[in-house]
């Protein structure tokens, strides 16, 4: 995806104004300013405190020292840290506690000990309060940057669309903003430019790089009548396109919407963490008060008790708990989107690891969904046979006829055919017609039987082909068989590899189809699936899935349109789409590339993402479970507590980013 953008930028600067995601960068810039400001004042504070520690002396008198700390600390807490203080206090007063509440309370208490120490016998924690705030801001800055990295793929997706379009108004070419393009506008796309929106080619021929949606690196030829998709890249010709979909209806918009929706999806494992997060802050407040009370009661040392309570306030980190799942999900779904894998349901990520059985629909999923010529057998000149067959079939719209015509045109480079007289389509059986003086009948066994045409000499071959699941067309000239052509739905290029990899991962693979047993078994054998459920009516596929669910969790892979009920019934429904034709609603995971290897990738990605989520939750829980008791016991200096807290959030987000190194 990235490469294409760069390459597009080079060739077509006006179409790809890099608009940085403003919100994210503003946030990072803001934290950076606060970070620099806070440390500018905190470093002198730290030096003063260090002097005091090491040399046991003060540069100024005790009171003056405190006043200096308070003055230096004031901007750190009340200017650079103001949003945190404000948000935190608001949370405290409105009972919508947030993690700022803890930091605000911790720093304010510490700061005010400085003021009090001017009048009472109490330890001055005001220097510490600045350091807590400075480290807190540092942590937030690093975290914001890491979060920015986590969303980089999604940001790229948002930036993928063209910003401008050159349209034809009257006879004039004018350049307008993409938002002003209307349905029906004629758009001119020059070589190297991005196609601005979804449309259909009116004029011109070109190759278009559609790798962003199909994953296919070879450009696709487009000519009059071809559909084109917005954000794909026109390679070498000029295309005149009529806009058919604009704005939020385009393919790219749909994908972006899907990916964005995933971000607020909940993964079940996060539920516990969410529950804890929601009561976390008040619980810590209570704990801090209890800690303070117990310390006062046991030690009668007010200063020490305050220090311990502040440590408890600042060490507890609900943020790491809250970030654990969303950051991993964001990185995972971004990685997926880049590969044409759209995770729609957060739950699917968690369920996927328990899936043992994968059921594939045959047609359009394992196979290409359209017939191709497999075998030609004749005892006469093959060229003659093919030429005459194609000549006749040219007049038919049937997919088998098309397959034969395509094959012959490709093999013999025939462009023009002779005239066919008395052409007739015989529904469900074949075609007939006359070329010159010769009468041709092309069709299945039934048709030949009807016409009493003897299959002698071809009988064995016909049975052979039929037994390997192919459909056989018998060609007769003047009531005599001259050859046979068999066609079959070809399997997709990487189906075999995909099934092999799934088997290596010990999944049970099953193929389900409405086709007859012979055809089904033949395909299954080619692709390496041992178990076949044939003759299943579309509406019964869901029932079969239900039956299989008795043996374990089932993932169903199908085309999303006919297979919607089965996709819904299965534990993880994987809907396959090709091009713009994706049925978004029915799958838990949607594959846009239409290739079976996407299933393997989707499974690997789900598992990797889920294990990241688990790791993150483990770190976040573990951190709090360990750190809070240590703070309560008084073993943690408040500044160290704050550093630990900041690190816990950063660890979680950074760990989520590490998901990217995983090969899927």
């Amino acid at each position, binding site marked *: 995806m990235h490469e294409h953008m760069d390459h597009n930028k080079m060739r077509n600067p006006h179409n790809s104004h890099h608009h940085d995601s403003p*919100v*994210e960068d503003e*946030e990072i810039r803001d934290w950076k300013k606060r970070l620099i400001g806070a440390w500018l004042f905190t470093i002198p504070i730290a030096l003063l405190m260090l002097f005091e520690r090491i040399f046991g002396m003060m540069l100024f008198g005790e009171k003056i020292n405190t006043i200096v700390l308070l003055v230096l600390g004031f901007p750190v807490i009340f200017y650079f840290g103001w*949003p945190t203080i*404000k*948000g935190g206090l*608001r*949370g405290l007063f*409105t009972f*919508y*506690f*947030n*993690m*700022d509440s803890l930091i605000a309370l911790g720093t304010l208490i510490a700061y005010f000990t400085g003021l009090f120490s001017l009048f009472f016998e109490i330890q001055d924690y005001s220097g510490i309060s600045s350091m807590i705030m400075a480290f807190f801001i540092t942590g*937030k800055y690093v975290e*914001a940057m890491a*979060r920015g990295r*986590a*969303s980089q793929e*999604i940001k790229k997706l948002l930036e993928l669309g063209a910003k401008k379009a050159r349209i034809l108004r009257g006879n004039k070419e004018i350049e307008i903003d993409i938002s002003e393009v209307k349905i029906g506008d004629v758009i001119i796309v020059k070589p190297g430019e991005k196609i601005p929106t979804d449309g259909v080619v009116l004029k011109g021929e070109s190759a278009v790089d559609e790798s962003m949606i199909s994953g296919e690196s070879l450009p696709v030829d487009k000519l009059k009548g071809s559909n084109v998709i917005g954000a794909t890249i026109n390679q070498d010709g000029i295309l005149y396109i009529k806009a058919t979909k604009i704005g*939020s209806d385009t393919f790219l918009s749909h994908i972006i919407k899907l990916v*964005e*929706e995933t*971000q*607020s*999806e*909940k993964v079940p494992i996060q539920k516990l963490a*969410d529950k804890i*997060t*929601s009561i*976390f*802050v008040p619980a810590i407040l209570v704990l801090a008060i209890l800690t303070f009370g117990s310390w006062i009661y046991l030690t009668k040392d007010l200063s020490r008790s305050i220090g311990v309570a502040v440590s408890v306030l600042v060490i507890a980190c*609900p*943020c790491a*708990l*809250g*970030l654990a799942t*969303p*950051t991993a999900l*964001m990185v995972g779904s971004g990685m997926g989107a880049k590969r044409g894998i759209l995770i729609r349901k957060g739950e699917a990520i968690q369920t996927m690891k328990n899936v043992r059985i994968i059921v594939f629909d045959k047609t359009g999923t394992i196979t290409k969904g359209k017939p191709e010529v497999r075998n030609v057998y004749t005892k006469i000149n093959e060229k003659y046979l093919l030429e005459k067959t194609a000549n006749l079939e040219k007049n038919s719209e049937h997919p088998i006829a098309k397959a034969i015509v395509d094959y012959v045109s490709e093999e013999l480079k025939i462009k023009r055919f002779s005239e066919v007289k008395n052409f007739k389509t015989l529904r469900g059986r074949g075609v007939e017609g006359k070329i010159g003086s010769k009468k041709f009948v092309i069709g299945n066994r039934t048709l030949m039987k009807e016409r009493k045409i003897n299959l002698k000499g071809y009988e064995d071959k016909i049975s052979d082909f039929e037994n390997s699941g192919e459909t056989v067309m018998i060609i007769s000239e003047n009531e005599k068989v001259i050859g046979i052509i068999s066609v079959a739905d070809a399997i997709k290029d990487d189906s075999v590899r995909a099934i092999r990899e799934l088997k290596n991962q010990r999944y049970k693979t099953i193929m389900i189809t409405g086709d007859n047993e012979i055809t089904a078994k033949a395909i299954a054998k080619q692709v390496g699936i041992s178990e076949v459920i044939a003759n299943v009516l579309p509406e019964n596929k869901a029932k079969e899935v239900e039956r299989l669910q008795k043996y374990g969790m089932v993932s169903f892979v199908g085309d999303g349109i006919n297979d919607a009920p089965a996709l819904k019934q299965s534990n993880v429904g994987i809907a396959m789409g090709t091009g713009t034709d994706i049925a978004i609603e029915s799958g838990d995971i949607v594959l846009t590339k239409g290739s079976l290897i996407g299933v393997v990738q989707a499974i690997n990605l789900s598992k990797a993402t889920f294990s990241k989520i688990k790791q993150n939750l483990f770190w976040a829980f573990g951190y709090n479970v360990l750190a809070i008791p240590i703070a309560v016991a008084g073993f943690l200096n408040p500044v160290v507590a704050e550093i630990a807290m900041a690190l816990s959030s950063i660890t979680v987000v950074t760990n989520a980013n590490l998901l990217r190194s995983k090969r899927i």
Partner: protein
Amino acid sequence: MKTAKIEISGMHCSSCASNVERSLSKVPGVKNPKISLLLKKGSVELEGNVPEEELKKAVARVGYKATKITYE
């Protein structure tokens, strides 16, 4: 049922996001609020006529700002 998409500025912590969700869910007619901290936006389902002001207020109540609300 209508869905409102809300863009929110100022959230920087997951408890912020869940606070916004909590606050929004208290608005009559608002169902199933989902807020993403990372994308700084989210969606709510609306039953009946919920004034945009109410949504904005609910976000403001917990200290953040609804910068943009769109419906679909």
